[in-house]
């Protein structure tokens, strides 16, 4: 838009800083990114707004008179609560794992992400088997401690908060962990040398550095809590998403659309206020030193305490996935009033492995979410870069465009995508995607782009633009500076976001079921079929396979993150300060 005028005026004013061509490069990159966002996200999602306006705005009347307004209040309250609980758990875990070394650290690091891999449908079931009145924990407490099983079970809003905390803390954990890895230890040391107390150093040096990461986690958690449906349904809490489903079930599609619009407007308002907050307190590290070394705990007692503590934490985090694994070895229907299942079998696994078409859904999900992940990385990273480096108005708009789908329930996204890509038209550039394999990666791309975008955004916010400018002054073109300086500096954040996008795409159900083409049923649809016919064992066996595969991906990712460790262990310290922030080496 304003590109032309800037380039004319710029050479004289900014001839020294070489910002002109940088600016032009930003606008040059913004065009394709904005186009992709328009075609794949904004235009499809407009369908919802159009439907909601169908009755001349009458669909919005529910918000004036009670039930929808109350549901909205409940949704916002739950989302704020979820941000607090996930924030505390995720940040604490990230600090613990990035800054301290103790027995069990590496195991904890590996498993810390697994709760995100909980298959969406049986994930909820695992919470039922754990914490409901007839679940393992309340029954155990009732049997051995004499507690009232009904009173100690997770219920209502508390149940929702429990599920949200357990499944969403990785949004904080990953962001904070990557920010800590990118931080500069010399700043902390300087603060301490200048006489600051440890607490003051955290408050005035580290916390401000972590702001972009915390903002990213807060945004992702708040918006996805607003759009969460499974947990409220499971604990029977009348949130706005429950109202949306009720409206759809009764055929009141315009009311459902109006509720979805209000939901996303609230989320977008939250997004804008977080942006404002983040911009007010911007802290960048201009030097790129080594991150703080991992503090090794010494002494028998602290080590033992840390070991036991991390064991308990692993148990808590692993309980839902472990329950699914347990179910996969359980004879269907045999587990009724016992604390743990009485009969075990391998039959559930033999059943899926003897079925010739079993592997297909797994491959479909793996490949489709991988493709979507590549797309998310390309557009997410470029989008984050454009939003951060863009000078002038309009960057908030781009931010909203990317984040919009994150605020909408999955079904709405699925329906919108089908509608938008059903027939060739000017707004979808003539693409017909329904019935083709491509619609699945597109749906995953649209749904999970915000993960990569936010994560990349957070790590970019930590990087001083002067690093890029230095590269430009040394003669690198804008593309080369981006490729060789900025992107490597962001690599941890990108990897974290890409991991989340891949994992969530792998198990996606709500949008997939509306869009998936014949013959390419994703894994989640197969799991749904098994649950529908109440074959829990088989469903859990599928879920266990899914989690095992994701665990493999996590191991690979951890290897990718720390390729330098081996060399460091061999003592080949690279000359000079490393440009790439990497995890500090783990002492062996």
């Amino acid at each position, binding site marked *: 838009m304003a590109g032309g005028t800037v380039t004319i005026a710029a050479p004289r004013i900014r001839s020294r800083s070489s910002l002109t061509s940088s600016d032009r490069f930003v606008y040059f990159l913004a065009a394709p990114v904005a186009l992709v966002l328009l075609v794949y996200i904004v235009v499809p999602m407009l369908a919802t707004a159009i439907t909601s306006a169908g009755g001349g705005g009458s669909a919005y009347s529910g918000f004036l008179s009670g039930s929808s307004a109350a549901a909205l209040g409940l949704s916002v309250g739950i989302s704020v609560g979820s941000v607090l609980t996930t924030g505390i758990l995720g940040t604490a875990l990230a600090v613990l794992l990035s800054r301290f070394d103790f027995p069990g650290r590496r195991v904890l690091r590996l498993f810390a992400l697994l709760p995100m891999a909980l298959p969406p449908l049986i994930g909820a079931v695992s919470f039922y088997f754990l914490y409901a009145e007839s679940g393992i924990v309340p029954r155990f407490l009732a049997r051995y401690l004499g507690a009232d099983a009904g009173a100690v079970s997770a219920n209502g809003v508390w149940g929702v908060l429990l599920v949200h905390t357990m499944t969403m803390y990785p949004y904080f954990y990953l962001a904070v962990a990557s920010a800590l890895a990118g931080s500069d230890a010399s700043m902390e040391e300087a603060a301490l040398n200048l006489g600051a107390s440890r607490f003051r150093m955290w408050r005035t040096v580290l916390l401000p550095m972590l702001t972009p990461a915390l903002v990213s986690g807060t945004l992702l958690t708040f918006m996805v809590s607003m759009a969460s449906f499974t947990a409220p349904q499971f604990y029977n809490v009348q949130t706005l998403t429950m109202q949306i489903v009720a409206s759809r*079930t*009764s055929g009141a599609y315009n009311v459902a659309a109006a509720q979805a619009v209000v939901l996303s407007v609230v989320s977008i308002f939250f997004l804008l206020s977080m942006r404002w907050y983040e911009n007010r307190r911007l802290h960048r590290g201009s030097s790129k030193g080594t991150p703080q070394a991992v503090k090794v705990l010494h002494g028998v007692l602290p080590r033992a305490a840390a070991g036991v503590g991390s064991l308990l934490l692993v148990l808590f985090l692993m309980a839902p996935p472990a329950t699914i694994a347990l179910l996969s070895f359980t004879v269907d*229907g045999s587990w009724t009033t016992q604390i743990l299942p009485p009969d075990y079998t391998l039959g559930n696994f033999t059943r899926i492995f003897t079925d010739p078409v079993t592997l*297909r859904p797994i491959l*479909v999900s793996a490949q489709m979410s991988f493709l979507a992940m590549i797309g998310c990385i390309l557009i997410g990273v470029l989008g984050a870069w454009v939003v951060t480096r863009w000078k002038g108005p309009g960057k908030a708009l781009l931010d909203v465009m990317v984040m919009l789908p994150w605020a909408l329930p999955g079904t709405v996204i699925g329906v919108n995508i089908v509608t938008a890509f059903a027939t060739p038209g000017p707004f979808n550039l003539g693409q017909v995607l329904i019935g083709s394999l491509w619609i699945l990666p597109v749906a995953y791309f649209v749904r999970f782009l915000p993960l990569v975008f936010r994560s990349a955004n957070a790590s970019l916010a930590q990087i001083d633009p002067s690093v890029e400018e230095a590269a430009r002054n040394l003669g690198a073109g804008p593309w080369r500076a981006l490729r060789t300086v900025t992107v490597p500096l962001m*690599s941890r954040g990108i990897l974290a976001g890409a991991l989340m996008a891949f994992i969530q795409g792998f198990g996606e159900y709500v949008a997939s079921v509306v869009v998936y083409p014949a013959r390419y049923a994703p894994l989640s649809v197969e799991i749904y079929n098994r*649950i529908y*016919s109440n074959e829990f064992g088989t469903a859990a066996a599928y879920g266990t396979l899914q989690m095992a595969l994701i665990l493999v991906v996590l191991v690979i990712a951890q290897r990718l993150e720390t*390729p330098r460790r081996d060399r460091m262990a061999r003592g080949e310290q690279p000359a000079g300060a490393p440009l790439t922030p990497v995890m500090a080496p783990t002492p062996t």
Partner: protein
Amino acid sequence: MSRPLRFALLAGGVALTLGMSACGLDSPKPAESSPGAESPRTLTIYTARDKALATEVIADFEKANPNYAGKVQLLTLGAQEALERVKAEKSNPQGDIWWGGTQQQMRQAAAEQVLAPAPKDVIDAVPAAQRDADGLWVGEMKLAEVIFYNKDMLTADQAPKDWDDLISPAMKDKIAIRDVLASGTMRSIYAAMIDRQFDAAGSPDAGYEWLKKLDANTKVYAANPTDLYLRITRQEAAVTAWNLQDVMLQIQNQKAPFTPVVPASGAPMLIDGVAKIKNGPSSAGADAFLSFLMSKDEQSKLSETYFQIPTTSLPKEPSWLADLNLKEMNVNWERVNKSEPEWSSYWAANIKGQGNR
């Protein structure tokens, strides 16, 4: 150098994943819906029915119509998702048959003009009350909504015998109910409960009062049917209301400890429908499938092995049905279809969770 190493690892990972996935994915590729000159086009069925049942019916269909062998695609999804999908694909339909949906869902689709009439023989075989007037959808089976209980928790004497027993004080905290607003089935059952007391006073108030007492006795609202089965099987609650076919299948396939009770005053009978999608890719295939599915032979088989109550009249009633003595409750479906949304939202706002106040 760290970067080349990282890129190498990453590229390796990419190649591995793509290779792994690609070789698995495209091996069985029967040219996607190629408009062959002689052979019929691929028939695509969206079904909300149980996958095992649907797969078996399709196998029978392919046997009876060899020219469709290997040319039937089955997509499994919930009834509500099927409706959403058929509506969203209106401008370029991808499916030919929508199999499994409530009467209300089928009516919505018909009103949205996304359905096409079934073949005449199919329409004629189904009584007019159980299908669309123009045959845009036809009822495939009747779902009898009954009470069932966990036989390990209650004896036959203690178990409720009729709907009104559900609100007796003896049932306090013994009842689980599938979340009502998100379930077409539960909405219909609750509406039937209101409807049966409507004529006495000419208002839904007596029904609301009844539902309030039911809410007071309800211990938990289950998130979905599976959750409902779980809570009953694992003895969190003893009694619920659900459709007979699912209960019988659970008893047979999962050895669930359930015993169905046909309420003395009768069971509301809901219609589960099947429809031909308008402008689908294989119109002829859709007709052939509908005729096959609704044929007496196939319906007899489903009725015998899958506990279905057909809408078409069969020469012989299946033995399990004869034993049950099923009585249909008299429900004014026209009134229910008209007032159900209003009644349901009243229930959600003023009754749910407030029975004990």
